[in-house]
Each structure stands twice: as structure tokens, then as C-alpha cells.
């Protein structure tokens, strides 16, 4: 939302969150090293580095992928979403450490280019038993790299949200590649069923969370509003709207957030211009609708970000008749001022 480029828009919450990430990584790596040395005293520094960074990266990847559906299922997880980017960059850094050191360790000693060696040293691409699993990890790392370098809002704005979103959807492909990299790699060598169970459990939890959240969202999107009068659709009663909060309604193709603020009702498009966050799940702070994902703000009466910011969303007509809220799903151009529905006046219409 800033008008000038800032590498990281630090605030207290982000600093606390980053310290938590750092602390968790430090504790995890310490425990991993300690246990490895206890149970396998012969382990080398190189192997320790490769294994500790990879296991931590896979763990963080699962956490990152779980945050989205958890937030859709329970709003208490929203603070994690606010800071998910830093977790993603941390995960990529660990994956890069693992990948970079593995290439150095396994491919840099021959007279072949290490990156060429990665693909030609094992050419059993037609064999499941001896599949060159390192290539899978390499492609996943490339996707994570592209995601990490474009994670800044600078790239979100310049690539356009749809290109950016599409690029970041590749995380699902990367996740699949990572799991196959693990299954055809370390699982084939260690053959410990416990590792397989952990990987399988992680995948099942993630799939279940995403499908549950998806089903919930689809049910919400498919809810029917049949009572229509003069282009206005009956959506709810005034009592259902909490002050400075909103209810979200999916009318036709898109979601609309209906806010109650002071003595008026306003309706704006539910999708934040930043990363598509659900504005209706946020609340009005200092007179501005505040996106729960990253704190982007919009004025309720015109859908515009307060100056000097320039983001705008569509506004809608809304009216209140006998304590019933009626919404016109036809959008006005982004930033168009609407007076909102006064609870006291429209009530007597």
C-alpha cells in the first residue's frame, strides 16, 4: 500500500513474528543436530546440513500450505496469514541451502557442469526404482525461487495480481514435486516406514484442510437469494450486522461485503485489491474498512483507499426497509461515492 518502495514494511507484529520463526528454526535445527549426533555419531557435517535444512523446509512448507485453509475455517488463524510471506521466504532459504549444498556435494567434484551433472548423472527416467529424484527437487526449487523473488508487493503491482496469483498457484505443483523428491530420494535409501507415514499424514492433513475449506466456500458461493424487488435482493436483517463489521453475500458471480458503520449500512466489493483478501472479514478501524490479510484500507462510502493511496473497489447500492437490508448486486465503478443506507431514515420508507 506504500507509495514508495520499501524492502520490508516492518512493524512490531512482523518483528515479533520473524523472531518467532527464527527461534523455531533455531530450536528445530539444534534438536535435529543433537539427535543426529546421538543416534548416528558418524554423520558428517555435509550430511547433517543437507538433512536438517531439508526436513525443516518440508515442515515449513506444510505449515505455509495449511495457513490458507485454516484461516477460511477459523478466523483466529488470520495473524498467521498476515505474515505468511516471511515464512515462505524462510522456507525457500532453507530449501536453497539444501539444494545448493546438495549440488555442491554430489555434483561439483566431477569435470561436468554441476547443473548438467544433476540431469545426466542418473538417466533412469523410465524407472521408478531408480528415478533421478534430484531433478524433481530442482524444479520445485525453481518454482520456490520465482515465488520468493516475486513475493514483494513491488512484483504484485507490476506483474498484475492475476499473473502474480497464477504464478503463486504453482506452489501446488512444487509441493507435489517436493513430496515425490522425498519419496524417490531419502525414502528409497532409508526405507523407514515411519518417514512414509509422516509424509503421508502431512499430505492427508493438507488435502483434507483444503477440501474442507473449499467445500465451505462453494456452499457459501452457491447460496440462493430469491427475494428480489426492483433490482434489490433481500440479504439479511439489520440485527444480523454487528457494528463496524460486515456480512458477506455472494450474489451472482462475486461476493459483496455489507458493512454496518455508525448509523449507516454500506456495501463494497469483497475483494481487496492487494492480494484478493476478504474485506468483509475485516473490520472498520479509524473509519476505514481494513483487510484482515495485510491491512489495506478502504473508506466505506466510496471504496477508495484514504489518500495518498490509490486502491479502489466497487461500491453498491443498499437500502434498509423495516429493519431488512436490501442490496443491489449491480456494481458502481470503482471508487464511486454512495451515500449508504441510513438506519433511521430508510427504516420508515
Amino acid at each position, binding site marked *: 500500500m506504500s507509495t514508495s518502495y520499501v524492502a520490508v514494511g516492518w512493524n512490531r507484529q512482523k518483528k515479533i513474528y520473524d523472531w518467532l520463526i527464527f527461534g523455531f528454526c533455531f530450536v528445530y535445527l539444534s534438536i535435529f543436530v543433537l539427535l543426529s549426533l546421538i543416534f548416528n555419531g558418524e554423520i558428517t557435517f555435509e550430511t547433517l546440513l543437507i538433512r536438517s535444512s531439508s526436513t525443516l523446509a518440508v515442515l515449513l512448507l506444510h505449515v505455509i500450505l495449511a495457513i490458507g485453509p485454516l484461516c477460511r475455517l477459523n478466523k483466529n488463524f488470520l495473524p498467521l496469514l498476515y505474515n505468511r510471506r516471511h515464512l515462505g521466504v524462510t522456507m525457500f532459504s532453507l530449501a536453497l541451502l539444501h539444494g545448493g549444498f546438495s549440488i555442491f556435494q554430489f555434483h561439483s567434484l566431477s569435470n561436468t557442469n554441476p547443473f548438467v551433472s544433476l540431469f545426466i548423472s542418473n538417466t533412469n527416467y523410465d524407472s521408478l526404482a531408480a528415478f533421478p529424484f534430484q531433478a524433481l527437487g530442482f524444479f520445485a526449487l525453481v518454482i520456490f525461487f520465482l515465488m520468493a523473488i516475486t513475493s514483494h508487493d513491488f512484483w504484485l503491482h507490476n506483474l498484475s*495480481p492475476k499473473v502474480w496469483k497464477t504464478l503463486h498457484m504453482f506452489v501446488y505443483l512444487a509441493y*507435489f514435486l517436493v513430496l515425490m523428491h522425498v519419496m524417490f530420494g531419502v525414502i528409497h535409501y532409508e526405507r523407514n516406514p515411519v518417514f512414509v507415514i509422516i509424509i503421508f499424514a502431512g499430505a492427508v492433513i493438507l*488435502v483434507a484442510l483444503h477440501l474442507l475449506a473449499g467445500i465451505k466456500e462453494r456452499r457459501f458461493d452457491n447460496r440462493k437469494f430469491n427475494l428480489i424487488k426492483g433490482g434489490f435482493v433481500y440479504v439479511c436483517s439489520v440485527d444480523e450486522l454487528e457494528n463496524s463489521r460486515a456480512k458477506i453475500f455472494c450474489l451472482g458471480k462475486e461476493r459483496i461485503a455489507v458493512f454496518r458503520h455508525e448509523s449507516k449500512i454500506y456495501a463494497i466489493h469483497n475483494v481487496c485489491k492487494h492480494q484478493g483478501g476478504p474485506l468483509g472479514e475485516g473490520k472498520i478501524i479509524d473509519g476505514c474498512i481494513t483487510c484482515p490479510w495485510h491491512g489495506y484500507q478502504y473508506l466505506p462510502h466510496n471504496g477508495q483507499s484514504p489518500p495518498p493511496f490509490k486502491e479502489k473497489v466497487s461500491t453498491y447500492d443498499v437500502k434498509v426497509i423495516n429493519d431488512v437490508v436490501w442490496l443491489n448486486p449491480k456494481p458502481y465503478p470503482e471508487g464511486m461515492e454512495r451515500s449508504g443506507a441510513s438506519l433511521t431514515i430508510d427504516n420508515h420508507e
Partner: protein
Amino acid sequence: MDLQGDHYSGNCCILAIIIKALDKCIKIEILMIKPQRRGHYYAWIILALLLPAGIVFAWLAISNAEPVKWIKSSNSDLLPLIKSSSRKKEYCVSLRTDKNYTQWQLEWENITPLTVPTAVIYRMPSRNALHYGRQGNRNEGGGPGSTKIEDGILVGRIEARGIYVFPINLDYSGNQELNLILYDFIHQQIVDTINLAL
């Protein structure tokens, strides 16, 4: 808010063209994120099918060869008698025994750092002579003198540097040959073969 390709110049023009092309390819309207939600949902339905299938296939595809576990080199004293030895530029391999030929040790000394850090030593079914290529395929051969790793017995794993001593079971009757393979299990290829006469 969208990038306009014309805004870029110089080195960035290729990027702008790519972004423009991507922008045209992606039909999802940003104001209509319902398709995006659907996209996420379908992506996870596909993953729900692919992930278990991939995990099961990968598990079933594990080869029957002895797993490459970390076999520690012995800390015990070296046996006094060197029965056979093979010295190469990179390493020296010796077969040690006691005076009664009841205990055996394989001593592996890296003279120069190995260029394959994931090297393991396999003992292969014996025959009188073996002539394997340096880039031998793991699927060649079968039976005595086989180069199939599945037929071998894992002796131990070695790192790039150091001296390693592995206990080895031998039923000594003379006129035999101990056939060893140095195998790179990451690259799935035979690095070298060593034949020690007994």
C-alpha cells in the same frame, strides 16, 4: 494497477512482453475471484488423487537391493596379515586377515578425495575374473560375476576422505577372488570394480 507493457523499456522490454502474453493467456478476471476459488479447490482434488498414488507407487517401487545404510567402519585393531591388495591412483584396498585365516577385514584408504561422495562398497558373487567398465550399468549381468547391485552384499559406505575398515565374512579355500564394486547410489552407477585374489 496492472502492468502496462509499454511502461517498460530497455532490458525490461522482454519481461514486459512476457507479462503481456501471460496477461492475455489468463482469462480469469481479477474482479471475479470465484473462479480462482474454484481453481484452488480443483487443484486440491487433483492433488488428493495424485499424492497418495505417487506415495504408494514410490513405496512399491523400492528395489529389492540391500538398503544403503550407514555401516560403520570397525574400530577394532587391524588384522596383521595383508592377504591381497589393490592400489589405484585414488585409493588403496587391502584384504587383511589373521594367521589362521579365520577373521577378515577390508581396509579402504582414500589416497585422494573421492569424486563421488555417496560411494558404497558391494561384494559381488564371485567368479574368476571381472572386467567391468567404469560406467557399468546396474542392470547388466546376473548370477556369478553379476554387476546387478541386487545380487551384491553391502560391505559399507565410505566418504570422500579417510581410511575405512570393514569386517567381512569369507570362507577361505584358496584360488578365489573377492569381487568388489564401488557404487554411487545417488547417480545409480558403478564407479569402479576391484578384484582381490585370495
